[in-house]
């Protein structure tokens, strides 16, 4: 960086500690990133379910009992909130990964892509619920 010996340049580098606390935009970004922990936790919950299912009826029924506990319900409410925030933040950022798209010569806005994505997510949720509803004993 110094072009000659004895240059008067002495640049000061500011530390990055606590950078994400300095602006609400960054805080929202970190909350979005933290939803990954929620997704991981639910994957582990399902994994344990798969293990219990493979261990037979008694093990599976024990697992169902655990799912009925107040602690499990509260945890799943937290997971649900986190999953919903993941869905919303996912479709918010998704337009950035897409090239320019045109319909009838007009550029499709990022907000349109987000809204369509959220609509598809709502339909997917309904479809899944309908599937479960249709499989009732």
């Amino acid at each position, binding site marked *: 960086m110094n072009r000659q010996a004895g240059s008067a340049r002495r640049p000061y580098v500011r530390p*990055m500690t606590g950078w994400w606390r300095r602006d609400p935009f*960054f805080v929202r970004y970190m909350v979005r990133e933290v939803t990954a922990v929620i997704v991981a936790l639910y994957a582990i919950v399902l994994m344990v379910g798969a293990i219990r299912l493979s261990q037979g009826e008694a093990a599976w029924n024990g697992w169902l009992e655990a799912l009925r506990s107040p602690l499990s319900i509260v945890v799943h409410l937290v997971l649900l909130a986190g999953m919903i925030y993941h869905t919303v933040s996912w479709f918010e*950022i998704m337009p950035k*990964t897409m090239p320019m798209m045109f319909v009838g010569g007009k550029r499709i806005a990022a907000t349109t892509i987000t809204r369509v994505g959220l609509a598809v997510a709502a339909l997917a949720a309904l479809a899944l619920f309908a599937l479960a509803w249709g499989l009732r004993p």
Partner: protein
Amino acid sequence: MPEAAKTIEIEVLRYRPQQDSAPVLQSYLVPFTDDMSVLQGLQHIKDYVDGTLSFRWSCRMAICGSCGMMIDGKPKLACQTFLRDYFPHKLRVLALAHCPIEGDLVVAVDDIVAKLESIKPYIVAKEPRTLQQGEYLQTPAQLEQFEQFSSCINCMLCYAACPQYGLDSKFIGPGVLALLHRYNADSRDGARAERMQIVNAEEGVWSCTAVGYCSEVCPKHVDPANAVNQNKVNSAKDYFLRFVAPKGAAK
């Protein structure tokens, strides 16, 4: 129309490399009118209060990209930010974030300039034409593919916004990658394969975590976040299809 004299306090992060071991905040009281920009406030300080205050500026109209700084914690162009919007509160002005401070509000731009030079920021003719053949023709649709990304004024607000650049300056960064995309998206250009080598590197698009703040702060609505993240798709295609279609893929 007579205006009552108003004064606003501007707190500036000073740094004089010859005498300061670390930057220090210094307050100034600046009389202002509603039409004054932060840049004009700084100019008042330099002209009438403290001639030692250093800052970059030129056009005063948000096109040269010189006066980028942190104004109340947000990357902004000082000529495009107005004192009236902060009054009666104090206004804190710091040098652009994530860049080393040379002195006061002046940052070292060596790294970013070197990166700009490294991406072949010019059209490498896809099909060379002689003067006799006339100019390249482009449809409005072809122009639209890259025009937005050509609006960059190199103000570096996006670098101040990008935490990944702040955490590791090896990252090529939003502005330079947007410029890279400007050329790749131009139908006249044929150097995509060479530029993809930069895109495909860890220091290329893969250091980006889609924070998106760069596009928020861009004064020219270039949308660098879009340039970088759509190239993640291009880079992934390049990665997976390179054995299937070696002709188009970069090494």
